């Protein structure tokens, strides 16, 4: 556990150095990775499938209940919602308010930033998203899709 944290920290600092070295680059691509446990019922997922899962439209894969994980509020969440789901954080909330009240479907569970990896490894249909450069190398993790997302506000 201690080694992994260290790696994530060093990668983060190197990224920081790179981005500060080239300030003229308006929207450098940063990569997100959608991760799941090794028991997850799919090897890979398309961008559309991930969108449908996060909007509650796709809830089962091979009979297994898919449980997407979400963050309460952070930069990776905003970037993910904008580029993958195609909504702002508010639009996403109201989509889920309607879904919650109309269909009785619970929205993705929001967890603390550092708990995503741990939760997906528990299996049981959990999946989450992290920055690719922050994702630890772990045999128990499966990378479902790597996404290029534009950096910036």
């Amino acid at each position, binding site marked *: 556990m201690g080694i992994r944290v260290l790696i994530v920290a060093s990668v983060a600092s190197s990224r920081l150095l790179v981005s500060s070295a080239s300030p003229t680059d308006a929207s450098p691509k940063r990569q997100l990775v959608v991760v799941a446990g090794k028991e997850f019922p799919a090897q890979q997922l398309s961008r559309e499938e991930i969108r449908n899962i996060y909007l509650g439209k796709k809830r089962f894969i091979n009979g297994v209940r898919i449980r997407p994980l*979400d963050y309460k*509020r952070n930069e990776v969440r905003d970037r993910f919602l904008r580029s993958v789901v195609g909504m702002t954080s508010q639009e*996403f*909330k*109201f989509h889920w*308010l309607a879904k919650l*009240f109309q269909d009785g479907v*619970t*929205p993705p569970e929001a967890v603390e930033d550092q708990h995503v990896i741990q939760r997906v490894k528990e299996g049981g249909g959990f999946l989450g998203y992290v920055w690719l450069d922050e994702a630890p190398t772990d045999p128990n993790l499966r990378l479902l899709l790597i996404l290029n997302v534009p950096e910036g506000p």
Partner: protein
Amino acid sequence: MTEGHWLLNKPVKLQLKAALAVVVPLFLLSVVSMVLSLRNLDKTLREQYTNRAIASARFFEIILGEYLDLSQVVAFVSNIGQLKLALPHIQGAHLYAVRNGQLTPIYSTDKRLTNPSLLYQNYNEVISQGNPVSWESRRDNEPVLSVLTPIRFGGRTPQPIALEIVLELKHLNQEIQRFALQQAAFSLLGLLVTMGFAAWAINHWVIRRIVRLSEQVVAFGQGTPTQTAAMVDPVADEVGELSRAFERMRYDLRSTHLKLLQSEKLSAVGQLAGGVAHEINNPLGVIMGFAESALGCVGKGDPLEMPLQSIQREAMRCKNLVQDLLTFSRVSRVELEQIDLNEAIESTLSLFRGQAKMGQFEIRKELALHLPRVLGNPNQIQQIVVNLANNAFDAMGRQGTLAVKTSLLSDNDRTWICLAVSDTGSGIPPEAMPRIFEPFFTTKPVGKGTGLGLGLVHEIIQKHSGTIDVQSRPGFTEFCIKFPVLTDQEREERIAEYQMRSLANPPKEGRAAND
């Protein structure tokens, strides 16, 4: 009086009627006011409750839509069943979603849901029109108010949801009940105070005085002379005015009554005296005739001369007396004409000059110039002055002043010519004052007066529609006679009336003379 007012016709005391008149409207007014304010309060409180529920629903909408994260929303609605609602008087809340075209409960603070038919009835109003709806029902045998409010999240969700907030009405009803009791107590207190004051005020200011006046009127009507000037209501209002008017009326009535009595007495005595005089007239004529014949037959120095002269003199006195009686008692044919009062006085007073010179008398005249003329008989007017002057000289004895004044005065829309005859004599004793106009009443020594003088004066003045007043004290006596100044029309009417009376009632003087 008014037949329609049953209460007015009942033999109910004035106090009770006044009390009813005050209490009944006041009572009705306070009842109506209480009912209206209760209804108003009820409506206002219910509106307040409904608005509070609507505001809570809006608050819920804002909290969910604007302030809570998605995760917090989920936590909130998931735990709504455990939510102990801290809001006062809110029994529970239910969240409904639209599923298959009807409201379906999704989250509830308790299991007791509203009657589905009511939800169905209100669906259109709440979901399609977007208006809150409220209704009252009973839950666990307690009255509750349900307020169903649509929640649309500012139109950012495709379908609205609806929040029903169930409020306990028990507290509200208790509040209304408490208010009603308070109101009733205050109203009752106010009513009692107002009634007490009104009863006191009406009784003190009006009723008591009317009752007292009524008692006085009744007593006066029964002939009990209870009222004195001191009992006149001095207050300057209508009741006081009524009391004073009654006192004036009472005074006038009493004086008129006394005058009437006096007049009747005079008339009766006059009739009697007239009858007697008429019978005496003829024998007197015989006595005088024979006395005169006998005097002619006896020579000077005859012992019968003096007795016969006495018989003749005394018979003449009797004749004069009889003449006075006849004048007093009968309507004689008198001619009315326009008289200058001053002239009549002057000519009469000239008769007394000799008398004045005999004693130490002064005759003082103060005659007003340009007096209107009096409609009357000159002989009778002179008779008034003669009688009054004779009395004055008799009262003064050997010396004194006789003053005769004329003047013009106005009162009560009428102008009067005033004749005042005063003397500085012994005055009329107070005990004699009420009787001075009675025939044959005299204070003079026997043989000096007949007691007919003032009676005649009174009779003549009455025939001239005048009045006579007397004031007297030792050393001063004044008779004040007033003759009305007549308008042309009144004068003509008076003359016509006189002529009519003369025709209908021909004087018996002629017959008396013939007898």
